Every structure is written in C-alpha cells, then in structure tokens.
C-alpha cells in the first residue's frame, strides 16, 4: 500500500486537511475522516447516485472520485443543507411528498435535485427525468420524487419572493 499524502480543501465551507492514500475515494474520505455518512457507496460504478457529492459546484459520483482530486477544491455534502431548525426546501419537499422509503439513496437524490433546481427553477417532467437518470432507487419511489421536485420548486419560488 502506498504512502498517504496530505490534502487541504474546503468541506461544507470550512477549511480541512486529511491524509489520504491514492486509492481512497471521496466517499471513504468523508466517512472515515469526517464522519459524514450521507454520501454512501452502493454500486461502486457511478451508476446509482447514492454517493453524490458536489465538488466545485458540480455533482460527482463520490465512489469514483479519487480523494486526492479534492485537494484545493470546495466539497459540499448533504450535511450542509440543513441547520438546527431548518431543512432546505428540497429536504422539506421530500418529507412532505414521502419521496423515500429506506432512505439509502435519498441524500444523493437531494443533492441532485438541489442542483437541478439551481439550474432549472421550474423544470418540466422530461427535464426532471433526464436530470435524475443517474439516481436509482431500489424502493422505486420515482413517482413520489417527481412530486417532491415540483413541490420543492414551488417552495423555493415562494421562499425567494417572501
């Protein structure tokens, strides 16, 4: 096993450092160094979306993204979205629309839907389906996720004008 290297990056807004090995992926880095378990490895091939993390403003598959590559980057995880007393509109919408069952894939969906609504505040059904093709849910709560995305879009709009 090869030697570790020290990297520095911004994690959910705060500067952090970690010693990582070349074969470590971003999910492992977040889980073992920082105790953040919202991004999870499932398929290990970047196909299911359970490991979705935002790096420099873009959603990536944390299971395929080598930890070393976040050196100097800004990393945002699902754990950044809520505060003690408030959930994000997307999180609220997922609860209200019952858009999950086991919840294992949910953080990945939440991250991807947040990015979708940043880019398309009022998405069409086709845009939603297309955008979320890379997020799979074995409990198959797709119809409920569709409802949640639309609800979240309304919540965000209402929040922006409030």
């Amino acid at each position: 096993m090869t030697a570790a290297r020290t990297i520095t990056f911004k994690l959910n807004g705060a500067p952090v450092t970690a010693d990582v090995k070349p074969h470590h992926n971003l999910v492992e880095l977040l889980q073992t160094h920082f105790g953040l378990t919202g991004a999870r490895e499932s398929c290990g091939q970047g196909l299911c979306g359970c490991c979705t993390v935002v790096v420099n403003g873009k959603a990536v598959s944390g299971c395929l993204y080598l930890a070393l590559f976040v050196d100097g980057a800004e990393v945002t995880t699902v754990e950044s979205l809520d505060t003690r007393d408030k959930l994000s509109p997307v999180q609220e919408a997922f609860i209200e629309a019952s858009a999950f069952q086991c919840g294992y894939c949910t953080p990945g969906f939440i991250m991807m839907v947040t990015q979708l609504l940043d880019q398309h505040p009022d998405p069409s059904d086709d845009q939603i389906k297309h955008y979320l093709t890379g997020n799979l849910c074995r409990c198959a709560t797709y119809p409920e996720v569709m409802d949640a995305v639309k609800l979240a879009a309304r919540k965000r709009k209402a929040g922006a004008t409030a």
Partner: protein
Amino acid sequence: MTDTLNPGSAKVGSQVGRSVPRLEGRDKVTGRAEYTHTMQVPGMVHAKLFRSTVAHGKIKSIDTSAAKKLPGVLHVVTVDDVMKVLKSPYYGPAFHDQPILAHEKVRFVGEPVAAVIATDPHIADQAVQLITAEYEELEAVYDEVDALTSKVYVHDVLKPAGTFADLKHLKNAKDTNLALDYRLRRGDFDKAYAAAAHKFEHEFKTQKVLHLSFEPFACIADYKDTHVTLYDSSQGPSFVRTEIARLLGWPENKVRIKVPYLGSGYGSKLYIKLEALALALSMIARKPVKVAYTFEEMFYQITRHPSTFRIKSGVDKDGKIVARKCEVYWNGGAYADIGPRVTQKSGLTAAGPYDIDNVWIDSYALYTNVTPAGALRGFGVPQLVWAYEGHTDMMARALKMDPVDFRRKNIAREGRPHTTGQMLKDSPIEPVMDKVLERMNWSQPFDKGSGTVKRGRGFAIANKAVISPTTSVAIVNVSADGSTTLYCGTVDMGQGSDTAMAQMVGEVLNIPAESVRVTPRDTDVTPYDMGTLGSRSLFHMGHAVKRAAEDARDKLKALAKEVGEPEGSNIPIADLFQKRYGMQAGNVIGSGIYKPDYTPPAPGTGQSPNVTPFWMVAGAGAEIEVDTETGHVKITKLINVVDCGKAINPKSVETQISGAALMHLGFTMFEKMHIDGGQVTNASLADYKIPGFHDVPAVMENIYIEHDQSNGPFGAKGVGEVATFCVGPAIANAIDDAVGVRLMEMPLNAEAVYRALRIKQGKPLENE
C-alpha cells in the same frame, strides 16, 4: 406527551388513517440516518472474502501463505480456523446446511472459501487476491427440474434444523436434492380431469433475479468472552440472536443484536446471512470485525427462486374449472435458506384464487449449484401468479370466452372453501378485480394500434395466505413526564412500520403519533418478533402493539384510582406519577403478545380449516404497445389495486403499492441474472439493469380498497408484497392481446418478444 388521562373529547380515528409523515424522515433527508454498512465501531477491523470459482468441487488445498505475509493482515481464516472456535460451523433457518466458510466442498461459484481480516479493507482486499485454491471439480446441477432426478447431489446428507415439523422426515436423507416435497390433495383430480370437456396444460418459467438492496449486506460482530454484540443489517434480529446463541452454545441473553435503519431488504436480509461469519471472525481476531459487502458480492448471497411450474386444468362445457394440477419446481440453489418455507407457504396457493373442487399440488424445493435462493417480496407467490394467470388467459382465449367472464365464473368467493379447505373470509377478490377493470375502462372499446405498433391490454388477479403461525411481542412504556416509548422488533427497512406502529399506539393512548418514540431495534431491550417478512408485521406486530398500548392505558387508569383520582378524572399524566412517587419518577409499562390461531395442514392432503389468519388480495391491469419491428414493449398504463383492510397510513400504503409494482416491473421486463457454467456473468449494476425514472409507465395508478379485515388491528392487514403479484402476468396477457404471442418465461424483453413474433410468422430466428 401523553397529555391527560381522559381528554374531554375522545379523538377516535385521529391517529389511525392519517398520512403521518415518517418519524425518521428528518434523519433520512439529512443523510444522518444510521445504517450498518456505513457504521464504525471503535477498534474495528475489516474482513474480505475469497470465493469459489467452481460451481461444485472438493477442496484439495487452499494456499494462504502469501496473503498472510502482507503487512496489515491480521488473520487469514479457513473453515479449519472457524472450527477451532465454533465446533459446528453450519447454520440456516430450515436446514443446518450452510458452512460459515466452505467445508470440504464448494457448492456454487462465489461461495466464501476463506476470509482475510486486516486493519484496512483495502489491505484485506489485496490479500484476498493472493489466496489460491485447488479443487477437484465435480459435475454440477443447475436446473430445478433436472435436480429432481439428477445423480449429482449437492449435499451428501440432508440436515434439517429441527424447527419445522414437515422437514423432520428428511433427516439424514441421502441421494436426493429434494429439500421439501409439499403436497396438497383435494377431491379427485385424475377422475375430474379425465371427465373434463376441455383440457389445458402449460409450463411457465421464471428467471433468477435478486433483491439488490442499495445498502449491501453488512454486519459488525464484537465478541467478548462474556457476551457478544452484533450491529447488523437484518430483517429479523430475534432469529439472528437465537441462531448465534445456538452456534455459541450460549443462552440468548448473552447475545445482543442491534439493528439501525436498513438500506432496505425485500427479503434478502432475513434469517441468517453474514452474522455467523462475522461472529467467527471476531472470535478469532478478538476485536470487532466488520464484514461489509460490495454491490457485486450481493449476487453471491441470496436471490429469488427461479421456478418451473407445470399447470394442468380441466374445464367443463360451461367454462367452469373442475380440476387443476400444479407441479412447481423451485430452484433453491446450494443452500436451503428459507426455500422449503417458500415451497410450502406459497405452494398452498398455487392453484390461484379460484373455486376448484379437485386440486393436486406438488411443490418441490430443490438444491442446485447456484447462489442460494430465499424470500423476495412475495415468498414465491409472484412466480405462481405468473403461471396461473397466464394459464387463465390462455384458457379463456382457447375457449373463446371473455377473460373477465371466465374469471367471474371461477373466482372463489367469500364463504367458499379455499383449496386448503379454509373458508374464505375477508378475501375481496372480485371487488379488487372490478376496481382494476373500472380503472382500465375495460368495458370501453380499445384502440388496438396500427402499422408496426400494436396495442394490447391485460389484467391478472391473485391472493396469498400470510405465513402462519408466527408471534410478535411489544412493550409500551409511559415515562413519568407522560411521554411514550414503543419497543418493537419490527425492522423499519423503508416500509414505514415505525410510523404505522406509532400511529396505533397514538390511537389507543389518544396522543399524536409524532410524539411516540420508537426505539431502534436492540434485542437487549426490544422483545421477540418472528421477523419482518411476508407482509406479516402490520397485522401481527400491530396486534401486539395495540395490546401493549391498551395494557398501558389500563395501568394508567389503575394508577389514577390508586392515588385517589375520581372515576373519569382528566388529570395530566405527569401529575399522576408526581402524586404516586412524589417526584418525576416511575414508569407504566404495558406489554402485548400476539399469535394467531392455526391448524397445521393435514400431512399428505394439505387440508386445514385454519391455515392463515388473513388473505392478501391483488389485481393489476396493463396497457402496452408492441413495436413489431423490434419486439420492444412500452407500458403505457399500469393499474395496481390491493385490499389493505384499513389504511393505517394512506400515503405509506400507496408508496408500498407503487414501489412493489415498479420493482416487479423490473423483474418482468428486463432483470435477469445470466449464468454460464454456474458463473454469474452480469454481477454489477452496469450489466444488471434495474428500473429507473424512465421505466415508470406514463400512467400508473396505485389504488387500495378498504375491506375491513375483521380480525385485524383496526381492521388492517399488510401490503408490503401484494402489489408485486400481478404485474408480470398482466403485461404478458397484454402482449398476447396485442400481437398474439405468448411468452412463457420472464423477462419480457424485446428479444424475447421479437423471437416469439418471428416464430408466429413462421420465420424463427436462429438461436445464439
């Protein structure tokens, strides 16, 4: 908080029947919900597995020397090492047939042969690559029908676990692959069939598919010489505790199973999976050991049963089915797991929801040299419905009868006996069918398409008997501030059981469900439950929870009397404790146990007046388009209807129906484990496709009817599996309607449809 003892206006129905948002919702959307796969325990080390590359063989040697030398490797373990800490390394719910690591023989490709324990999972992985093994390969048997007569035997001697009476006769059986031969006999099939005006015989098959929970299997065992704790992604912690205690020769109270939320299970995480291995490794390492599978490894743990179903029916001149013979072969793989129960419990409904006087059912659990098979959202029933509802439509077509009229003539109605002899009650098959037909606009003219795109529609109906007899226990604890905690062993793996159970407590105690705390499952504190399986929990645990809450309520009232409160007093609960104990102290603890009445089926005939406490009833209808140039099938409408008795949480019921139907849509249309010489060749999500956003039908309706379940808690019954039953045959019947071809085996992918179209045109394609 339990506000007061007797609130002025009793809010009956205020908690049950309400779409309470899930209690764990916040933890799940913030990514903070705990799962075993992502859990860490201080001091924990990691294990990875070296697996068999042959389907059937004697182990000649295992070379672990290179692996042991790798820095960071603590132990390389074979079954010989396991047997130094656990005398008998065999486990299983029905048979003690599965070794913790392969013992003398390997019986399927992917079977664990050795384990590496290391400080880091990557080191363990690397060390696994350095292990080699030599096998003397044996002939293997893969097909379930072949297995019945094959001279290749997967096991030399059968070892029933002793828990199930109908397996005892198989003790020490030799020269057989048969792990259970279930039979039902009613009337005289041979005579009635011989006399029937019309005779039909078909053979249906289902393929090997698997659960693929997104949280792969995971278990952390922390063995101490005085007690052991397992952190476990399990659907049945009580069973795990019993089995681990048995392996150790310990009393159960020294074994603790802690189960956080599950990244689902669908039946895969039942009974015992990684637990015995994790235990043995922790005993050897004398540290907590985590075994966490990769996605690929799930293909070598447990799958659904492939099946072959030969079904024969005799029909009289008026279209009444007078005789039916069912021969079902279940491909159980190398280890029995719960296969024999699947064989029996689904076998008893193999003749379908029809009123047939003369029935013969043989249902065979068979060992083969592939990944073991167990329960998957339906306990075998989806495979049966696939056959009998295809068969029903094929008969109606041949008899030139309308498929609705044909079913109406044959449906088993309430007050009539089921094929087991039990009188049907709370089994609204016809109302469910009528709801499907209504939502399909069945009586309206239907556009059959034109040119190269043909349209068709089809439907199916089914029932299932909930597994019986099983036991659930619950405890409701009211604390001195009036707050309420529920202890129940039902595992919330996504179905929303914590919320539904809290609603039942809330209904009895007249408090908001949201205020009830449901403790995470921990066998040190949560009482016994048979397992979260087979749609049993809402009914069985629901009864136990309701009784526990009623017991707590009665004890609160007794406490009020004891402290001198007048009858009907509306004293705040907290004041009650204050009065009794002089400070905020004490508890009121209610408990409840439920086990339904049951009469075992008579040996040989399978007849019983009381084989199940409730029937699940389902129907589905599909409209589809077939592109006759490619064979591609597009589902344009899918209607799913179930009877839920009473919807405790209507939104959860709808989500369960929808999720079950879509999961089964994947099994119907494209999912299949491809196996070549015993080797799974598509063991990854890249090669094994599951439903995504684009696979959801353009129109999908998920409907429940509420036919009061007269013996159910608040009139309710379970709905976790029921919407899986009819999707497959409804679509196959629709394809037949569209293009006149009948597919006898799932999946119904473009290739299968196109090949069938070419055969129909008299221009069959060559095989691959």
